[in-house]
């Protein structure tokens, strides 16, 4: 909590409190891995329990899923560019890439919500079967994380506009970057173990 500033480090690592926050966030991501790991385990237990309801092959439309995937993976790349611009101390570059990241993220959430609505119209709801319960819970948790991330990053963008690049805003941006990449990794697992596996079974 004391100042203990080290200007040789990147902006987000310069103060002691920043270093604590970043480590704390890594530990939090560890807890998130367990959380999603449990949801994946639940999904893998229930993924063939259709209870007479629709199966993955009846529902999934691989084209839409591909678009979602490309949107989210691209947003992870642009998020990396944003942090790169932050390290170069280029505030406008950072803001530009961060906003593009969020737009791609919003596109992803929009597509996913549409996908869910489509399924519900086909009669596949959370209450239909154990498989669909676990499907909607796993994807819904991920989608909720992305939506929270968009709201959270918006707050950070406002603060960068207000205060410019300071150790505090840089730390906040860096942490949301970690969060965003993490959600991307989770999506890769969802794509593999939910969609691809569901289509090839």
């Amino acid at each position, binding site marked *: *909590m*004391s*100042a203990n500033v080290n200007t040789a480090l990147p902006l987000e690592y310069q103060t002691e409190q920043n*270093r*604590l*926050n970043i*480590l*704390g966030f890594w*530990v*939090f991501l*560890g*807890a*998130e891995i*367990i*959380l999603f790991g*449990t*949801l994946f385990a*639940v999904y893998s*237990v*229930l993924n063939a*329990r*259709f*209870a007479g309801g629709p199966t993955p092959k009846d529902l999934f439309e691989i084209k839409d899923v591909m678009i979602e995937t490309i949107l989210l993976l691209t947003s992870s790349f642009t998020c990396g560019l944003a942090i790169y611009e932050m390290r170069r101390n280029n505030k406008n570059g950072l803001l530009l890439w961060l906003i593009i990241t969020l737009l791609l993220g919003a596109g992803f959430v929009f597509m996913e919500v549409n996908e869910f609505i489509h399924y519900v119209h086909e009669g596949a709801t*959370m*209450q*239909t*079967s*154990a*498989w669909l*319960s*676990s499907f909607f*819970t796993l994807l819904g948790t991920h989608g909720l994380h992305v939506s929270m991330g968009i*709201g*959270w990053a918006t*707050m*950070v963008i406002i*603060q960068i506009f207000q205060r410019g690049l300071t150790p*505090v805003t840089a730390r906040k941006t860096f942490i949301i970057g970690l969060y965003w990449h993490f959600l991307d990794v989770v999506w890769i697992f969802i794509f593999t173990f939910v969609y691809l596996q569901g289509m090839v079974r």
Partner: protein
Amino acid sequence: MDINWHDLFIVGNPLILGSQIAILLSVIGIVALLTYLKRWKWLWREWLTTVDHKKIGIMYILAGVLMFFRGGVDGLMMKAQTSRPEMNFLDAQHYNEVFTTHGVIMILFAAMPLLIGIMNYVIPLQIGARDVAFPQLNALSFWLFFSGAMLFNISFVIGGSPDAGWAAYFPLAGKEFTPGIGNNYYAVAIQIAGIGTLISGINFIVTILKMRAKGMTLMKMPMFTWTSFIASVIIVSAFPIFTVALALMTLDRIFGTHFFTLSGGGMDMMWVNLFWLWGHPEVYIVVLPAFGMFSEVIATFSRKMLFGYKSMVFSVVGIALLSMLVWVHHFFTMGAGPAVNSVFSITTMMIAIPTGVKMFNWLFTMRKGRIEFSTAMLWALAFIPCFLIGGITGVMLAMSAADYQYHNTLFLVAHFHYTLIPGVVFAVFAGLYYWWPKMFGHMLNEKLGKIHFWLFTIGFNVTFMPMFFLGLDGAVRRSYTYSAESGFAPLFLVSAIGAVILALGFATFCYNIYWSARYADRNISNDPWNARTLEWATASPAPFYNFAKVPEVKTLDAFWYMKKHNEGLTLSDDEIKEIHMPSNSGLPFYMGIIFGITGFLLVFEWKLAALVAAVGIIIGLIIRSFDYNDGFHVTVDEIKETEKSWRSSDGKGVKNHVG
């Protein structure tokens, strides 16, 4: 939405009516007292908005003691009901509710806050830090825990208690077999408290990894810090599993999904697996910090360094790893087959090895030590044989073939009470007697302490020892009554008498707190026990900035070294520098309230209202995001003043090394 308004308040039972009146009177009493003493502002400024780890620790302990009382009353009610065959004190439904709340409250709302409270107070002091890594998050942890605890506790007067056991097995805990809202309380209240615990775990990991005093390498940390660190690692690895399990339970019960239901392809045994994937590590989350406390107490009162420090550390890490690999032993009778059961039998028995290492280390620490029989030490001494009984019966239960006989009997109930009471409750008492002077600047009365000790340990053994034999004779757990022909009556009666002695012991402890707060000698030094670790290097009670100058650590038992070499004990004026401290904040308190309201609405399945209340949570998060309050600086003059008040008394009249 199909809740009838006249079902909202539970009426018609004289016991519950009595509690409702008691709750109402105490609330009115507290409000009146605070108003009469004009203490509202004080309460807000000094406690509700505090981010000081010491005050948060004390609030945790206070809440834990209160919850221990509530859980204890539940226990006494069960003992009263089973004291004679065919008793009519509680009916079956009420008995179900009481053993459910007893279990949940004792583990999650008594043991956890008592341990986290002591961790909160002691760990930053032990490692020479000024606070935890995230002081405001620490306050949030407390208020979320408190909010969850209160939500759970109102269940028995508003809406009905959960009644499916503390493990809430499906399908019983599902909507189909438990249609009321009681079990919604279980799913929601524990979830809220669990978020708080998870945040605490993260906070302690970062604090211990990054904020140790100069020179304190990992292998020079006090043992209590080590065990709390490992317990925090287990919290972060195990609590998210419970978060998911409870969320799925909420979805099943409130939103009609099919995770654990019998229809729709759900799988009820998945709940049992998820629950114990968290539940078994949870046992070690509570017992490891307790082991650390015993280590501190035994080393201090044997006047010796802890024997086998390194093996202690390795065994703690070993226990943590094994704790994740044993969960199936809670349900060997599930029918997983001999191969699976054998694996979990072996991993379970393996836990006895590192635990045995620790036992021998404590014994060897005492060997040739100059043992001082203070109350704290008595608890540590009684812990060893009592816990050993718990441990050895645990190995008996670990044999999966034999477990088919023990399963669901009182033998098991006796076993886990023999691990949790000596392992956690004795430790908390030892820790409280030991650290009380550091927390409040006066000791707890040793004479009352010894009465407390003897009543409690005798009562404990008289209560639970008969239950081993009842269990072997076939008495099942969670059964609200038994027939006279069963022949169980004499042992059940002995057990009930034991419970009364146990309760008298706890009452003595409460009286001791009161007596000591009023009459105990305030004139004690910063180090009344002649102790070994850094928390004793600063004033008692510790000033809000903890250390005027953070000591430099050279060896294990840093403060002992400082005393023996007369290094770093004095403070010259030019060593004092301004200290940066975090500001108070009302936000954690607000978050506790808004989480409580949201949870309450969700319990009653008023989904839309809960959603509206949840917006309040988002607002709290947004306010926090824009909060740039950077804390304040304590001036050199203020530090000088505070330090002079306890350092300059040149030992006149001060009781040093009381014993």
